[in-house]
């Protein structure tokens, strides 16, 4: 899939690079099928059958391996749980995908996404509780919009600053977690 990387790496700014790679990655399945009527859950690279005629070479294998690793790396924007996240990853800010950095408060109100975990083949409801009360962390910006809804459908919209619900009235948005709430079945 060298063309994917070539297109992605053509973007100059690192944030745009992440955006374009994510968009291309998410659209990959649709492009292969030829139509895109419905949003796809991210299909794991590992789950795809090998493509006939694709000549394996060291570089392509390395890149595929890197992408598979990113899908399981909580500090990567491509991490499987991040399919509908918008903001800075708490794991890069002193917290983790399920905990807040010191001195911040986890907002109880939040948006959710349904993301596919390629490692076990299951779908999960992921809750992106924000950590609030400090200025934005500024590290590991990540925005993906799988099944994201407009703000008039709030509970699956990542466009709100969900720190507005935190009990102390804190509104300062610091970072976002990606907590598993349950299996989506």
């Amino acid at each position, binding site marked *: 899939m060298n063309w994917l990387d070539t297109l992605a790496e053509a973007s100059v700014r690192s944030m745009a690079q992440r955006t374009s790679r994510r968009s291309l990655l998410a659209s990959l399945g649709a492009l292969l099928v030829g139509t895109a009527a419905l949003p796809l859950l991210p299909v794991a690279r590992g789950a795809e059958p090998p493509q006939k005629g694709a000549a394996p070479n060291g570089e392509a294998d390395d890149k595929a391996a890197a992408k598979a690793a990113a899908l399981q790396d909580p500090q990567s924007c491509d991490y499987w749980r991040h399919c509908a996240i918008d903001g800075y990853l708490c794991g890069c800010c002193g917290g983790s995908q399920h905990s807040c950095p010191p001195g911040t408060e986890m907002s109880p109100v939040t948006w959710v996404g349904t993301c596919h975990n390629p490692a076990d083949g299951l779908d999960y409801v992921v809750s992106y509780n924000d950590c609030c009360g400090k200025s934005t962390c500024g590290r590991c910006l990540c925005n993906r919009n799988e099944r*994201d809804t407009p703000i008039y459908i709030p509970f699956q919209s990542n466009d709100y600053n969900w720190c507005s619900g935190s009990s102390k009235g804190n509104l300062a948005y610091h970072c976002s977690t990606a907590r598993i709430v349950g299996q989506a079945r």
Partner: protein
Amino acid sequence: MGCPHLCTVWASAIAALAASAAMAAAPLPADSLSQVESLPLPPAPHWVWVNDFAFSHMTNGKAMLVDGDSGHFLGELDTGFGAVRIVLSSDGALIYSPETYFSRGTRGTRTDVVTVYDAARLAPVGEIEIPPKRSSNMPMMANALLTDDGRFLLIYNFTPAQSISVVDTRARTFVGEIDTPGCALAYPTGPRAFFSLCADGALLKVRLDDSGRGVGQERTAPLFDVQTDPVTEKAVRRGDTWYFVSYGGTIHSVLIGKDGADLTAGPHWSLTSDSERAQEWRPGGLQQLAVHAGLNRLYAIMHRGGPETHKDPGREVWVYDLDRHARVQKITMQHDSGSILVSRDAKPLLFSIFIESNILDVYDAASGRHLRTVADIGTTPTIMVSP
């Protein structure tokens, strides 16, 4: 040998003496202290305000004013935490800005206000306190809009309970809050009417009395299918029509009837042909549509991508005739475009920014010709307004 060199030296010395004599005659005067610029009023139609919610340092929200013709930066307003947008008064003399402040920067007591700025001096001349519930979200035009007569400012609240705060700009008072459960934002449709967008695709029509209090609410039937192809919030208005666009690029128009209270679904039409849709052309961005009433044109930022790319920028702006619902032009953008605005005058400019960049591009809106790029406009510029 000797003489040419000496002559050159002497010539230089004489020239220098002459020059210094000339300089000594008229030194530059000192500049006076406290010279502060002021803007002419009414604002020029080719001016553009760029809002910046400063995502990496949200206490430092701003609105920055650029002259689209000269490319000059004319001034700015500091608009507080998570700034969404400023609102220009109808006569251009004042600017209203819903703002949020914490007593200790990013913590402490939250206060929300509408600051009133003098549009010539770009300095505050008043402040109206509002409930500290102003929705903090990716900026949308419909977060704060004036009723059609310019009197009442409608501000969307989200706590996550949803309501609209009404501010009387004439009296400079907060009138009250109108509950709009299950519905978001405020799209004015008359001097005393607006609608909110509801989670099932219906519109909630709200009427105000003459003091700005809510006096009636009524829901329409759903106008579009939220499951398969929801419209975005990023509608634009031309006269008595609000134009919404869906993730898939279908325009859904909402027609405003008499007095602004009647709403009906107008025609819907697609921005793309079947083959373009098959190639996944779709609109994207943050302020993804623009209109020009005089030219009768709709502008849309377009890119190729899957349904989850409805917020992605594009490198093309496609232009449509609003009577024929047909595309008449494609404008190639110099840089990624996430937000566009077309000035309202007879020789309009097309402005373009992108939240992950800090340049403003200016084009001739009729020909599509790129005119200039202005650098250093904020850090995460979001949406634009113009007079």
